[in-house]
């Protein structure tokens, strides 16, 4: 047994097809590798879930696990304790770096490189170097993402998004400027667009070929969760009382097109995730409701979990779509077998 590892015997109760775990700390993130889902919480614990097995819990950070990203067979995590860690699918923990009293706000990986941010600095590790390269920015980093199609790394911050492109063995910089704070960033699956969420209740996008930019707004609330879903693909977003799905097909992406809006309810959407291999998405709401819906006009959502007055903070699905995990702000984790 590794230090901090324990096989969990938490109080659970079985609902229809579901197993409930109560952890006592807000769920922060969930991430899938194959048929295993890793969940991180505000008490520094990472839990591994898999169908028909006991969940495993590993106390890896002191305090909140702020960020998480997947590699091919491991997860990267960043914490309030200033540590940047790698956790294998077996729960083995490797400390990559430690930043003392500064938080590790963001982490990202593309299979070849991996990176984290602490304050204004991004640290990138490459296979041909033993030490990380330091990339400095004008303000604290809100989001980090790799573009696997173009060997690029995006860092979002106040005033826009910086795109770092790997040329030879160094990173060269270009800035996509747009006023306001950009709190997270992601590349489209084809690598042609970069999109950021903003403090100002908006999503902003750029086409990388010519830096043409477009605003996707307004939203009634801040957008804390975005994901790529469906066959278009769509950028699916929280922050409204329905899931707003922006089409990114073709060379113009969503420019000049209307979004598809699904799963309308009275509450604001707090968490979204694509459902693998089908044109559907999962949406969690501020009141705890979770629905599954097709991404098409007038689709009828299926309620997977009823309201319980606690915000949904994480949703993940296994790669085959057989099992589903939901986490909330009060620390409840629901493992759910899809029929």
């Amino acid at each position, binding site marked *: 047994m590794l230090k901090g590892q324990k096989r969990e015997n938490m109080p659970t109760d079985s609902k229809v097809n579901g197993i409930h775990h109560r952890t*006592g*700390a*807000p769920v*922060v993130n969930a991430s899938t590798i194959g048929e295993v889902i890793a969940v991180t*919480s*505000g*008490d520094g614990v990472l839990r591994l879930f898999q169908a028909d097995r006991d969940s495993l819990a590993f106390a890896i950070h*002191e*305090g*909140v696990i*702020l960020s998480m990203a997947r590699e091919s067979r491991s997860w990267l995590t960043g914490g*309030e304790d200033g540590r940047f860690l790698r956790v294998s699918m077996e729960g083995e923990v490797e400390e990559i770096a430690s930043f003392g*009293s*500064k*938080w590790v*706000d963001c982490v990202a990986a593309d299979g070849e490189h991996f990176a984290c941010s602490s*304050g*204004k600095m991004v640290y990138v590790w490459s296979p041909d170097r033993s030490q990380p390269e330091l990339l400095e920015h004008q*303000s*604290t980093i*809100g989001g980090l993402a790799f573009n696997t199609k173009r060997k690029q790394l995006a860092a979002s911050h*106040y005033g826009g998004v910086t795109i770092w492109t790997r040329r030879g063995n160094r990173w060269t910089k270009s800035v996509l400027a*747009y*006023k*306001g*704070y950009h709190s997270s960033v992601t590349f489209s699956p084809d690598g042609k667009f970069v999109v950021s969420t*903003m*403090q*100002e209740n908006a999503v902003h996008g750029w086409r990388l070929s010519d830096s043409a930019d477009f605003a996707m707004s307004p939203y009634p*609330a*801040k957008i804390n969760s975005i994901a790529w879903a469906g066959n278009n693909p769509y950028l699916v977003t929280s922050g409204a009382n329905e899931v707003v799905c922006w089409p990114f097909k073709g060379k113009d992406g969503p420019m000049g097109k209307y979004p598809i809006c699904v799963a309308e309810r009275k509450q604001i959407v707090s968490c979204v995730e694509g459902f693998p291999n089908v044109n559907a998405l999962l949406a969690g709401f501020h009141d705890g409701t979770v629905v599954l819906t097709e991404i098409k006009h007038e689709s009828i959502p299926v309620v997977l979990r009823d309201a319980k007055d*606690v915000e949904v903070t994480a949703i993940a699905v296994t790669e085959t779509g057989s099992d589903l995990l939901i986490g909330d*702000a*009060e*620390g409840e984790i629901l493992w759910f077998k899809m029929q």
Partner: protein
Amino acid sequence: MNMNAQVPVTVLTGFLGAGKTTLLNRILTEQHGRRYAVIVNEFGEEGIDNDLVVDVDEEVFEMNNGCICCTVRGDLIRILSGLMKRADKLDAIIVETTGLADPAPVAQTFFVDQEVADHTKLDAIVTIVDAVHLELQLDEHHEAEEQIAFADVVLLNKTDLVDPAILGRVEARIKKINPYAKIRRTTSCTLPLDEILGLDAFSLDRITEFEPDFLESDHDHEHDDDITSISLTSETALDYDKFEEWFSTLLRTRGQNILRSKGILDFQGMEKRYVFQGVHMLMDGSPMDDWPTGGRRASKIVFIGRDLESMRLQEGFDACKVA
């Protein structure tokens, strides 16, 4: 455990050397049985080592929303959001600002960011001033004046190092800038923590409680270029539509010079007291509780800011009275 309760946030301002670190160390080391997280900036006077201390770079962001003086503390939005994910419940959060910081962006963060407002609430702005150096600092740095103007409580510290005549002069100067702040004389920041924490000074339903003579007192204002205050009263009820029109135009056009505003208003046809609180162009107001039975109904509004004389406040306010 109620995870939905708002955690109070106290903002601690003051110049370098005034005693912020002394006070923070007291808060972190005293046996008070409470859990306080402290957010300090990298230019702090000396290091404080504690697992509940978060080290940040102060970052003031302009919002891209057309409001020119709408600035927020971006680092605070990020850190507060992170702290709210902790498993253990915090009793309070204390934010230390850099010596020369303008308190407005910190206060405005709580008006602008809905998530911050949902999970935390601005409790009070506490400004520590050094009795020995304050006069010189006020003459040389406009930030010293702003920190006093924004304060709910001013800790007049190091009183043992100046003679009583000077102390009286310094205190008068503080009152001239901000007659509504409570002044606490201290040496080495020694005072009960409940005089600076848990004051609820920014809560609308505490405005009358925090300032018991709010409706009674009337402070004269001085005519000069410095920060001053003006209070306006009316025994005649006000017309809501006229007030709304005048006040929103005032904040929109002159909000940069109005640092803080608050008021209790008697609107014709409204049974409850209307209470509001503002920072620069942002304000938060709503009808609160009933007027005391048998007591007089009156409106009072106070402004702290620069160049208030040119805003023709009395004239604008008088025009809102029901004819």
